[in-house]
């Protein structure tokens, strides 16, 4: 099963496929026994994978249990949270469902504007800040001459995005305040 140091070495899709094959069936059975549908199981697992990936990639997390068990546990918590929101809280009051802090999402329109005005830059930046690629990997993926030139490009892109955010600041005061 994938660990953080392997995440960058193999394709992300391969890791996701492996997580689905190994963890989704027991999760689906668990949710089905509690009256959930296939669609609900899929949605729950998608969210759990995102949280799991972010833990591995962004915080260098390494679970004490096996990775399968950890991902399954995380997905079950997401299911409890979903039930608490959509089906009332009965029967789950003993479970701690506040396992992670939700980020305040940025307005979709602002993200769309940033994407329109510089998708390449956003791709470079997300590869570094979200996928946690090294400068060498960044240079390889985007065809920069060296790690040094990837560093400069990254800062140029960040400057560009910051300028765009500034331009739209008046429209999104709530998000930016």
């Amino acid at each position, binding site marked *: 099963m994938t660990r953080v140091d392997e995440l960058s070495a193999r394709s992300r*899709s391969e890791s996701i496929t492996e997580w689905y*094959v190994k963890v*989704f069936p027991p999760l689906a059975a668990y949710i089905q026994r509690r009256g959930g549908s*296939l669609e609900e199981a899929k949605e729950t697992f*998608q969210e759990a994978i995102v949280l799991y990936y972010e833990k591995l990639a962004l915080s260098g997390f390494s679970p004490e249990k096996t990775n399968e068990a950890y991902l399954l546990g995380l997905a079950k918590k997401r299911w409890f949270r979903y039930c608490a929101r959509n089906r009332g809280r009965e029967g789950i009051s003993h479970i701690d469902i506040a396992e992670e802090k939700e980020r305040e999402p940025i307005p979709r329109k602002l993200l769309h504007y940033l994407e329109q005005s510089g998708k390449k830059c956003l791709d470079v930046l997300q590869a570094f800040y979200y996928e946690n690629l090294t400068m060498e990997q960044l240079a390889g993926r985007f065809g920069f001459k060296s790690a040094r030139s990837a560093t400069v490009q990254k800062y140029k892109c960040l400057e560009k995005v*910051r300028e765009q955010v500034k331009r739209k600041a008046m429209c999104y005061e709530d998000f930016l305040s």
Partner: protein
Amino acid sequence: MRTSLVEIAQIENWLLKRGNPQGRLLTEAKILCSPDLKEKVHLQSASYEAIHQYGREKLFQEIRAVEYRLFHSSKHRSFQNRIRAIFKH
């Protein structure tokens, strides 16, 4: 690297708590004294949030693509049968 990029790097080190502590302390002092720099910090912080969300949306797209393949490709027939059996009851 040009001056404005060096400044971006300094703000980054301060916001993400990277680089050497003395450099961060100096940046902090500059931020306290400069409303202009303070605004840049604020905008840069919002930019990181936007990048994070963009990254997350890309990941969601990738997950959905994998899920679609697993549920629709003949290569994964045994997986599909396993899941179908669970929801048959």
